[in-house]
């Protein structure tokens, strides 16, 4: 059993990899996937803290995060499908009509 600190640092690393992915990729699909990475990193931290305190609350929190992530994926993929159907380019940089 490793120290809790290891899990937390791992979670931080995964989170940052996810950030880099969101900023770098242009396909909305891949961006959503990287978002999942970040959410999972958060889950890992939550469960680690739950183990640290001996409290089951962290696990419940992590479960709820998972549920929300699932719902978000549903909606996000629905949007992507709609984008594809309307023959919009699958490129986040070209969806720039909300500008000043």
């Amino acid at each position, binding site marked *: 059993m490793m120290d809790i600190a290891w899990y937390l640092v791992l979670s931080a690393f995964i989170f940052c990899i996810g950030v880099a992915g969101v900023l770098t990729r242009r396909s909305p699909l891949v961006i959503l996937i990287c978002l999942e990475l970040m959410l999972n990193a958060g889950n890992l931290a939550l469960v680690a803290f739950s183990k640290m305190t001996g409290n089951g609350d962290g696990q419940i929190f992590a479960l709820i995060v998972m549920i929300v992530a699932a719902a978000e994926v549903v909606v996000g993929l629905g949007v992507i499908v709609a984008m594809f159907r309307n023959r919009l380019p699958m490129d986040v940089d070209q*969806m*720039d009509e909300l500008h*000043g």
Partner: protein
Amino acid sequence: MTATAFGWLVLAFPLAGSITIALGFRQWRGRTAGWIGSGAIGLAFASSIGALIALQSRSPSQRALTSSLWNYIATEGVNVKLGILVDPLAVFMCLVVSGVSFLIHVYSVAYMDSDRGYSRYFSYLNFFVFSMLLLVLAGNFFLLIVGWAFVGFASYALISFWYRRRTAVRAGIKAFVINVVGDVGLVIAAILIQRDTGALDFPAVFARAGSVWHHNEWVIVAICLLILVGAFAKSAQIPLHTWLPDAMEGPTPVSALIHAATMVTAGVYLIARTHPLFELAPTAADISAAIGALTLFFAGTVALVVTDLKRVIAYSTISQIGYMVMGVSIAAYSAGMFHLMTHAFFKALMFMAAGSVIAAMAGTQDMDRMSGMRRAMPFTSVAFVAAALALAAFPGTSGYFSKDDILAFAAERGSGYWILYVVGTVGALMTAIYAFRMIFRVFAGEPNEEARELEHGHLAHAEPVNPLTGEPEDTDVGFPGPEHHIAEREAAMRAPMTLLAVLSIVAGVIQIPHVTDVVTDFLAPTFADSRFADVEPSVGLSVLTLALGALMSLSGIAIAYLVWVRRPGTSAQLVARFRRTHDFLIHKWYFDEAYDLLVVRPMTRLGQAASRTFERVVIDGVSQGAAMVVRAGNSLVRVAQSGIVRYYALALMTGVTALALYFLIAAK
């Protein structure tokens, strides 16, 4: 009820009338608005009589009552109330103002019928009467100035009553601008009075006047001169008189009320009211008397040559007010006020009769086109003759006694004041001449076209045109109504005219020198503090003046008869021989041209320069410059809103990283 309660009622009724008519101005049918207005003024007149009776029931030394509704300002050093002062002078003015106003309202009920702005007219007229009564009843300078300003506004509103007529609007603006000049003088005078005496209400100011200012000290002279600026602007004396002839653009009853009987007498009232100040500054009083005399001479000369019927009467008004100003400036207070009263009677009557004549002429005011109307309009001609007799101071009429009262007083004061006496007497001659010039030109001789039509019972009708410029008009809102009303056909016009005719002839009996002196006795409590309270013209001087006055009057009538009836070509010959004098007089001594050159054009150029340079460069520069700065800043910030989501995310991340770094460092 107490006199002050009556005083408040006098103010309340016209105001209520004005508001009532204004609120329901779409509802009133036919002549309703007219009767409401007349009723309101009638009630005001009844309240004035109530105030008179209440006042006279007190002993003479207790006839100056004040009453205030609330305090405007009550601080250290400044104490201004909404207060009225009811004393003999105020009640005298109230009676004259409300009485003559009532008669003119009744006249207007018929005269203004068929005008689309009927209700508006009576609302304005009631408001004017309210303002004038407020001015007269005011118990402090503050409220006096309020009433002063209201009267100026009412005058403007009524002069430009037919607001679609360009000439009327211009005349209204001219009147208002000159009035504002007077207002400024009055306000500055009030400021100086407040500064020196620490009070604005009349009893306090007059009580402290003697101890605050020395005799003929420059401060008090300046104050009196500033008061004179205000008085002359309102009363149309030189040099602020140019608005009054142009004010004839308003409806004839307006000319009768405002520019003959009431508003223009406000200046005279003001000088009489502030007489303690003028008696402390004899220099100012003498200047006032001199200007009064100059004005009466000037106006008399111009009235001899102008051909517009209403303008002759206007210059006659200026001239007669010159007499009144002269009178109150030389401390002939009751004489001046008496002349104010009689003048109100016969001048209002004269305007009413002129209105009837103009209606018969289908709107023309040019005397060159009038002649021989006596058979067609018997009542009007008798009324006009009655007014002219009183104006010309025919022996026995009211004008005779009042005018000569002033001149006799001037003679009694002696030394330099004999000049005023001479000027006044010459003026009386001129007055008689131009008064009967009007009579003979309009009523004598062969009937003209309109008169002949009228004799056959048919009122002349013409296309509506502007009487001054001849431009065609229509008869909708903002222009005179299509129908004309003459006195012979309207009882509502005949009744007031009859009453005024009787008063013009008979009212003189109340102030026959050394026989009756109702006015002097009545006004005595107000002027008891005057140095000249006991001065009375000696019997010899009175007789001399009366005789001379009769002589002037009769000679004037005779001259007029000769020139315009007996030898018809004489006036044309005189014009040809004295062409340059005639031109000078016809151009009103070139006052208007001088003002245009000295004042109007420089101000217009200043305004244009200001608009072109100052406004466009500085003000627009500042406001638009500020807008441009904001817009520039905006375009800088807009760069961040590219619409590309990833940049937003990057910005977010940058922020988070930076914050985390900060907290890390802070915690360490």
